[in-house]
């Protein structure tokens, strides 16, 4: 869900949080009624000692520090290391832990795109998303349009992302309704045999790990 969904809490990533002076983007324009409620709640919670301003600032920094490059590193390693890939597909949570990425307590299921099957992730009920690997979900992932349509007309939706899938591929959609989180392991593009791990990582976009696009350099037939 929403994630509303669990970051696997504080035991995580703290070592990877880079500390720096960070100013969140300014809120544009006049404060709306709902924004005023956010500010008022935050002030009251601080006054009551339930949270402190520093914790909020640090948590925003933590949120900002997690980007899809984490997921991309996992994918690139799986492309290069067949044994790692096998472990990743068998137990995504444990394999990520090998790389220092602690996803607990939310288990990760990694689904592999093949020459027969293309996988796509959605949360039709809210916005469950592998936040510890990819950061916050993009607007479209949370949108009613995506959540409504990806199951009933995935090829049409993918075209809206500029992705023209091979019509021979079978499409499998994963609806994250409960406690699992999903990551798509895309197919490694052809003609990348000599690529370094960094070059491979560069090919792996956030959207291809959700399944709405293919990695850079991919050729659709």
């Amino acid at each position, binding site marked *: *869900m*929403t*994630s*509303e*969904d*669990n*970051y696997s*809490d*504080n035991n995580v990533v703290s070592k990877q949080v880079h500390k720096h002076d960070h100013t*969140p*983007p*300014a*809120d*544009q324009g*006049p*404060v709306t*009624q*709902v*924004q*005023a*409620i*956010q*500010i*008022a*709640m*935050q*002030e*009251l*919670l601080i006054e*009551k000692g*339930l*949270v402190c301003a520093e*914790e*909020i600032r640090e*948590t*925003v920094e933590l*949120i*900002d520090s997690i980007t899809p490059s984490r997921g991309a590193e996992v994918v690139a390693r799986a492309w290069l290391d067949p044994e790692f890939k096998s472990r990743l597909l068998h137990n995504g949570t444990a394999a990520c832990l090998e790389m220092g990425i602690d996803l607990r307590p939310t288990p990760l299921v990694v689904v592999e795109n093949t020459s027969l099957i293309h996988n796509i992730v959605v949360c*039709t*009920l*809210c*916005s469950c998303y592998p936040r510890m690997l990819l950061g*916050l979900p*993009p*607007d*479209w992932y*949370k*949108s*009613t*349009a*995506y*959540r*409504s*349509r990806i*199951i*009933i007309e995935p090829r049409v*939706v993918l075209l*809206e*992302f500029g992705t023209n899938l091979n019509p021979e591929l079978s499409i499998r959609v994963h*609806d994250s309704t409960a406690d699992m989180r999903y990551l798509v392991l895309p197919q490694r593009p052809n003609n990348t045999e000599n690529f370094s791990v960094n070059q491979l990582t560069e090919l792996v976009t956030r959207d291809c790990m959700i399944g709405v696009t293919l990695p850079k350099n991919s050729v659709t037939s």
Partner: protein
Amino acid sequence: MSAKRIGPHDVAGSVVDPVDTTAHELAGWEKRIDALYKLLADEKRCLFVVDEFRLAIESLGPDVYNTHSYYERWVLAIRDILIKKQIITSDELSQRVVDVLDREV
């Protein structure tokens, strides 16, 4: 198609709008409500759990759900939980909202 729905959030198959694939940069208040959720529900405070939060969003009702943005729904859901659990009162929140809006003018 599937006529049966479990709530306003159960949207599979319900709309035909194209997907807007562009993304806006999150505003400060959006990140702060995300952070507040995470803190209030963490192991230290545990003022509520994710399932209570989801129920609060679903309980906003279809009109509110469909006319508010993603993080606006978060703000309203957390407000409802905090008032229900008597962590803040409705009166003090209303007064503070007035103060916040006055300050902005």
